[in-house]
C-alpha cells in the first residue's frame, strides 16, 4: 500500500472534516470536495500499486494499474461533483433568504432545550392546563 497516498488521504480527510464542521456552507462545500478527493484516493490506493494505463491493446493485465478502482472512482467523482453543485445551489438559496450562507440551528430544538432548562417546568399535564 502506497504510504504517500495514505498520508495524503489522511491529510485531505482531516482538512475536509475540519471544514465540514464550519458554519459557513461555502466552507462546507470546500470540505466535501476535499473529502471526495480523499475517498477517491483511498479507493485507488486500495486497488494496489500504480501501473500502466489500463488499455487492453497497450499493456498486459500484469503491468496495468487496477482498472476497477478507477471505474469506481470515476463514478464517485461524478456523484460528488453533482452533490457539490447541489450544495452550491443550497448555499445560494440560503444567501437569497438570509443574506449569508451560514447554517442555522433548529429553532424547535432550541425551544425544547429552553423548556427543559427552565427553573419550573412548564405544566404539561392536562390537569394543570
Amino acid at each position: 500500500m502506497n504510504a504517500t497516498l495514505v498520508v495524503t488521504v489522511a491529510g485531505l480527510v482531516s482538512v475536509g472534516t475540519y471544514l465540514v464542521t464550519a458554519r459557513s456552507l461555502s466552507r462546507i462545500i470546500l470540505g466535501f470536495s476535499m473529502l471526495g478527493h480523499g475517498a477517491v484516493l483511498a479507493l485507488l490506493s486500495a486497488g494496489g500499486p500504480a501501473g500502466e494505463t489500463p488499455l487492453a491493446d497497450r499493456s498486459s493485465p500484469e503491468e496495468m494499474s487496477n482498472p476497477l478502482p478507477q471505474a469506481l472512482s470515476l463514478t464517485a467523482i461524478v456523484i460528488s461533483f453533482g452533490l457539490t453543485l447541489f450544495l452550491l445551489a443550497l448555499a445560494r438559496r440560503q444567501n437569497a433568504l438570509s443574506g449569508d450562507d451560514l447554517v442555522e440551528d433548529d429553532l424547535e430544538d432550541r425551544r425544547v432545550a429552553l423548556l427543559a432548562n427552565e427553573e419550573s417546568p412548564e405544566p404539561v399535564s392536562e390537569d394543570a392546563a
Partner: protein
Amino acid sequence: MSTVVALSVVGPLLAAALTLALRARHRLRDAVVLTTLVGVTAAAVAILIEVERSGTIVVRVGGWDPELGIVLVADMFAALVLVVAMATILVVEIFAIGQRRSAAGADPDVVVPVLLVLTSGVALAIVTGDLFTLFVAFEMILVASYVLLTHQGRQGQIRSGMTYVVINLLASTFFLLGVAFVYAATGTVNMALLAERIPELDTGTRIGIGTWFLVVFGSKAAMFPLFSWLPDSYPTAPTTITAVFAGLLTKIGVYSLIRFQTLTDMVDLGPVVLAGAGATMLVGVAGALAQDDMKRILSFHIVSQIGYMLLGLGLFSVAGVAGAILFLVHQIPVKTVLFLVGGLVESTHGTSSLDRIGGLAMRWPLLAALFAVPALSLAGLPPFSGFVAKLALIDAAIASKSTAIVIVALAGSLLTLLSMTKIWLGVFWGEPAGAPAVPSVRGSLGTMVLATTLAVAGTLAVAVFSGPLWDMSERAAVELLDRQPYIEAVIR
C-alpha cells in the same frame, strides 16, 4: 423473472425520463406515474411469489460474471421488503395526486420525476448484490430526498435541508471510504464474495469493517447517536415527501445494515448493536415526548422504532432477525400512514401543532380511526401488526436471555403509547379548535383520504397476514444467518 427484477430498478428511471418530458401534460403524467408504480408493485409481488416458490433470483446485469460485473439478488428478505416499499410509494403517490389538485402540495414538476428516481434507488438498494452499487443506490435515494426536501426553497426547509444534506454527505463519504477498506481487504465489492472473504479476515480488520459499516448504515438508519439530523429535517418537508421518507429511507438503512451484518457474519458486534438499539429506543421516544407538534413527535418515533429493528439484529438469532424483518415490514406502512394522517390534519387545519388543534374525533371520526389504528400498532398493542412484530422480538430476546433489552423495549412501548396518547389528547380530543367546520371529504381531499385509508388497510393486512409474513421473515432470517444460500445462489 430475472428481467422483472432488473426492470423494477430501471423501469422507474425510464418513467422518470418520461414524466420529465410530459411535465406540461398533468393527467398523462399522473397516469404514467401510477402505471409505473402499480407495475413495480406488481413486479415486486411476482418476485416474492417466485422467490417463495423456487428460491433466490440472481440477475447478472449485462451477463457479466459476479466477480467482474454487478449482480442483483432477490432473496426472501429482499423480495419481502421490496413489496412493502413499492406498495407504500404507490399509496403515497395516490395521496400526492390528491394533494396536488388542492394546490397545497409540492411542485409536481419536481416531485414526480424525482420520486420515481427515489423509487428506483430504493429498489436498487434492496436488490443489489454489490456493495458499490449499494452506494450508488444510496446516492440516488439521497439526492432525490435532498431535492424533495428543499425544492420549495422555504426558509425552514433550507435550514433543515442543510443539516440533512451535510450529515448524509458525510455518511456517504464514510460509505465510500468503507468501500475502499473492504476492497483493500478482499479485492472485491461483490457481496456474495464478501460474505466468503470478510469472515475469514484478521479479527481486527473484520470487526473494524463491521463497526465502520455500523456507523455508515447506522447514520442512514438514524441509530443512536447518529440520529439527530432526522427529527430536524423530516417535519419541514411537504406531507407526501415526509411520508415517503418516514416509511422508507431509514428503513433502507436498517435493511442494508441487516444485510451487511448478517452476510459478513458480524455476530461479535451483537452486543454493540443491542446497546445501540436500547439507546435508540429510549432517546427517540424521549424526543417524541418532548415535542408539541404532531409531525415532530412522529419524526422522533421513527428513530425510536429503529431501535426495535436493531434489537432483532443485535440478537443475531433466527428468531431475532426474523422479528426485525417482520418489524421492518410492519413499520414501513405504519409510519407512512401516520404521516399521511398528519398531512390530512395539516392540510385541513394549516398546522400540525398540538396546541392549535383539538376535538377532531368528534368532527371527523374517520380521521380519528385512521390515526388510531397505526398509532396503536406503533405502540405494539394487539391485534395490530406492531403487536406481532413486538411479540416476536420480545420472544426472541427472552429466548436469548437478554433481559435488559426486554425491559428497555417494554418501557419504550409504554412511552410510545404515552406520546401517541398525547397526540390523541391534543388533536382528537378536547375543545374543537383549528378549522372552522367539518372538512367535506370530496374532490382532492377525498383522494387523500382514500390513499390514507388504503394505507391503513395495508397495515391491517400486515396484521391479518402476520402468519405467512412471519413464515417468510423466518425463512429470510434463516437464509441470512446461514449465508450459504446467498453465496451459492450468486456464485454458481
